[in-house]
């Protein structure tokens, strides 16, 4: 009995299993079993293919002793392809000449000899600068001193661009610092090194944020303040970043360029990352969601310089990024070539990819101000005008939320008016709406129409609120609405339908028509008698 009975397996399982079977006898038995069983065509082909492969192995001949007259030209061609020793081949050639002296066979042997001899001489790829290799092409970067020629440069540290908005670090900056800290701690342990996380701050008044950068994981903060840098601008931001990490002569930066650079994949961060990495003559893995440092075994001859060899590259930043619109992930590596370094290894990071680190209360570290005169030429492009996007309505901060539902359908405009009057009677309150109102065909008069917008929607597909008091007015209380409000401290429902679901999760239920109840409650509230009025309404039930 063979080890695997094919009749007990799917064809999909059999593929890999059969590939491991080397015994011809066993395969024959499997073939017989399948023929005796279902006789699936795919399985039979699979086993027969394997048999052929295994069978042909056994016919391997020894080129030093074989009688060439027994072999066809094709057999000779197959045989010599496996032979590495040129002396053996010459011997075979001699025997062929002395024997049948077939032209086809001889040319096969001669070709093999030639190919072995020529590869011996060229075991390393000869470097030809691109301009010489392809003289017919333009070489626009030819005069850039960093593109070609930097080999075995000194690279150290992980540089993190910390983006700010309105004088605050944005969250992704903190997330990146935390991740950088974690990676460099691991790196320093693994390589017994002492390389740093360097935070970069560029902007107006960013000097105030240096301590925060240290607290979130930086060893050193480099910052450049200038009131002209209040908004993100391509030229000066790029020039400053590159000057800091490549050209600036300071005693602690005794290397050519950073080993690693990390940017946020925000609108500004994406621009800056591409400009900086381009200027530093390296590559960029954009929009990454995972980073780690590890060694990598590479066999690509463009990287190793020697075809067929595998080289282990150390300290490689593995940059994971969603591909195919997020359905697959690729890991991008940025690795030096034999005649050209690719450093810094740079990535931009999707906000929210990494955990927000805990801030250290008394962080150690060094703060350095970057001193450079910024030439006026860098500011030739001016920001003359800008728009701030509407902030939208945030209902979450209110003590009271009054939400209107489809109960207003009889007179939608009046319903909104009553809701707004009720809202105004509270100190901290705002108006919410059920999805049913927002998606209705109700026609609202101009003065309330602006209030009917998705930004006021409460529920699963809108905002989730937990105010001290939630008043559900004419809302039946579907599950999708409930999840947006049922954590509220106190829930009051006003509804004409005593069977409405909302009643089940309200603290107080007012059975009544909102067009009558709301004005009474508003009046009571203004008179400071809300509790009593509510008690009266509830007991009306």
């Amino acid at each position, binding site marked *: 009995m063979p080890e695997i009975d094919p009749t007990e397996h799917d064809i999909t399982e059999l593929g890999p299993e059969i590939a491991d079977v080397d015994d011809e006898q066993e395969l024959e038995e499997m073939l017989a079993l399948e023929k005796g069983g279902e006789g699936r065509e*795919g399985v039979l082909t699979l086993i027969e293919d394997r048999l052929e492969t295994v069978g042909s192995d056994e016919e391997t001949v020894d080129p030093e002793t074989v009688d060439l007259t027994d072999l066809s030209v094709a057999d000779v061609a197959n045989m010599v392809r496996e032979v590495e020793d040129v002396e053996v081949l010459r011997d075979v050639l001699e025997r062929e000449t002395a024997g049948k002296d077939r032209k086809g066979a001889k040319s096969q042997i001669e070709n093999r000899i030639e190919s072995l001899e020529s590869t011996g001489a060229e075991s390393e790829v000869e470097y030809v600068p691109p301009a010489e290799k392809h003289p017919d092409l333009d070489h626009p970067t030819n005069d850039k001193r960093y593109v070609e020629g930097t080999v075995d440069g000194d690279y150290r540290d992980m540089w993190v661009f910390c983006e700010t908005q309105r004088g605050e670090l944005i969250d992704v900056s903190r997330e990146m610092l935390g991740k950088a800290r974690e990676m460099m701690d691991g790196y320093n342990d693994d390589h017994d090194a002492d390389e740093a996380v360097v935070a970069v701050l560029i902007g107006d008044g960013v000097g105030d944020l240096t301590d925060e950068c240290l607290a979130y994981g930086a060893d050193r903060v480099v910052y450049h303040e200038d009131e002209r840098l209040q908004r993100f601008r391509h030229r000066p931001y790029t020039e400053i970043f590159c000057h800091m990490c490549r050209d600036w002569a300071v005693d602690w930066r005794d290397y050519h360029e950073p080993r690693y650079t990390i940017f946020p994949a925000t609108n500004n961060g994406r621009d800056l990352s591409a400009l900086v990495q381009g200027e530093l003559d390296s590559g960029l893995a954009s929009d990454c969601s995972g980073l780690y440092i590890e060694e990598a075994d590479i066999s690509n001859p463009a990287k190793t310089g020697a075809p067929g060899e595998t080289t282990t590259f150390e300290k490689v930043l593995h940059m994971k990024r969603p591909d195919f619109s997020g*359905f697959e992930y690729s890991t991008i590596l940025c690795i030096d070539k034999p005649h050209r370094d690719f450093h810094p290894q740079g990535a931009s990071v999707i906000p929210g990819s990494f955990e927000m680190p805990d801030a250290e209360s008394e962080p150690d570290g060094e703060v350095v101000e970057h001193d450079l005169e910024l030439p006026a030429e860098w500011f030739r492009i001016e920001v003359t005008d800008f728009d701030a996007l509407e902030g939208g309505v945030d209902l979450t901060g209110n003590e009271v939320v009054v939400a209107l*539902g489809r109960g207003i*359908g009889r007179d939608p405009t009046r319903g909104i008016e009553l809701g707004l009057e009720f809202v105004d009677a509270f100190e901290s309150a705002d108006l919410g709406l059920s999805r049913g109102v927002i998606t209705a065909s109700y026609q609202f008069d101009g003065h309330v129409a602006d209030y009917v917008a998705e930004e006021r929607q409460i529920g699963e597909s809108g905002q989730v609120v937990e105010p001290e008091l939630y008043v559900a007015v004419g809302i*039946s209380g579907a*599950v999708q609405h409930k999840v947006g409000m049922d954590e509220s401290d106190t829930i009051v429902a006003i509804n004409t339908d005593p069977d409405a679901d909302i009643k089940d999760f309200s603290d107080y239920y007012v059975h009544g028509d909102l067009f009558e109840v709301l004005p009474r409650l508003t009046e009571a509230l203004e008179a400071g008698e809300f509790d009593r009025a509510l008690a009266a309404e509830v007991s009306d039930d």
Partner: protein
Amino acid sequence: MTDDYEHYEAVVVGAGPGGAAAAATLADRGVETLVLERGVEAGSKNVSGGLIYAEESAPYTIDGLFSGFRQGATERPVSEYYIHNVAGDRVKTFDLGDVHHHDTEWCDAVLRRRMDSWLAERVHERTRETGGGLLSGVRVDGLLRDEGEIVGVTCEELDPITADVVIAADGVNSELARDAGLMDWAEPDEWFQGVKAVVDMDPDLVDDRFDVPPDDGVAHLFSGDLFDGVRGGGFLYTNEASLSIGTVFHLDSLADERAEPHELLDSLLTHPLLDQWFQGEYHEREYAAKLVPDSKKAAHPSPHQGRLLLVGDAAGQMQAQGPIIKGMNHAVSAGGLAAEAFAEAQSRGNPASAGALYERKLEDEGVMATLRPTRYRLTRAVSEHDLVTRAAEGVLDSAVGRAGVRAFDGLLERGFNSPFLLGMIPDTRTSYVTIPRVVAEELGEPVEATNDVEPPALDDRIGDLTYDVGEPHIELQDNSWAASGTAVTACPVSAREFGGGCYREETIRTNGGTERVVSLDTQPCVECGTCAIVADTEWDHPAGGKGVEFEEG
């Protein structure tokens, strides 16, 4: 320009049984195949009544293509098949075992989430070997054309993809079939609408109450006056640990009668006949709905155009002839044949001939003859004529007709069991309502039981479904009551006087008067497609991974 796009030899759209069969057959023949599925997982968008057949005469069967299918993906075999003719509380039951077992190798009850996701895993493994694979969460939203010729597909989430063949197995509301102009949503009488409840039941109780062994099951059909004169019927299938209970109606009848599908389902669920199985316990796991094409009228005789081949529901390949309800098996056959046609056309160096070859195979293998019986087309003009219907109704209800029904008791049962006769059944009140009612009145025994189960209200059914709400995917083109009011009742998740559904009736004040209109909220949409037919809409599917997610299906 199309050179820049990713290219596969074959793109299969939709990972239901038709798409799975096509993809597996393509992969087995070494064709590089990419499968795109818009659900978060295969099966999450799919609903069936729940029986899958393997027919002895079929060119392909699902377990032939996917060994282990019955063990891994189905619920229970269905060995017994009954129809209950109902009139009030009188019921006459016929054993339809003969028609059920005719040409049937096996038949199993299935729940689509489980079945389709099981298939998808295997499809992915097999297509990956060819350099392709299965991607879920991708909505294919149209055909890619180059100089008027179909060259691939466009997607909401990905760049366009070119292919030598596009197999559209994207279901009853196929956007590709409509893009190609091969199918439309014009005529309500070409469609059925089914709604279904999956009802929890312990496996031991299923065995016990249906009197079946632990690894066996049963199907019951229902017809008669259960449904307020709406043409259609009900079904109940036993699953491993649940029941699939549903109702299926002609959409034109449902629309004309302004019937509420969920209420019709409830009239079945609360009929005294079902008490023997519920015994007062009812826990609904999931409410679902789908459109069903009526292949007699909707099956496209030539379901291809250029590189596009339609398979399964997308091509209207759903056989519903009286008590014979078969769809998935035909989708599997069609998927296999479409794949085979492409592989053969490709190896003959003429991939463009795949469509014509597919059409020929559908004919030669008898698939088309089953889906569009000539008998039906020949007799339809007479049997569906109003006068004939009324005359038949008159006779049946007369003393003579009733005497005939009594006299031919046995013959009737045999008639129900004849696939030949069933292929001729006219789609009128007579077949669906009058005959079963008269049969039950004359031959039936009263059911002495009270069924006091309370199915959930519509808002709770909607609330129990899982949704990931994205952008509205359906646009109401005309919100007047005349144009779109039918959707308020016909939509399975909308109802008169119910504000939580998709379609809602509203009255707006206009200059000097009031106007009756409908408004639409796509949040509770179950993507059945009903409103595309009965209302004036611009109908699309939600983006990949968005919209309703069925857990049972």
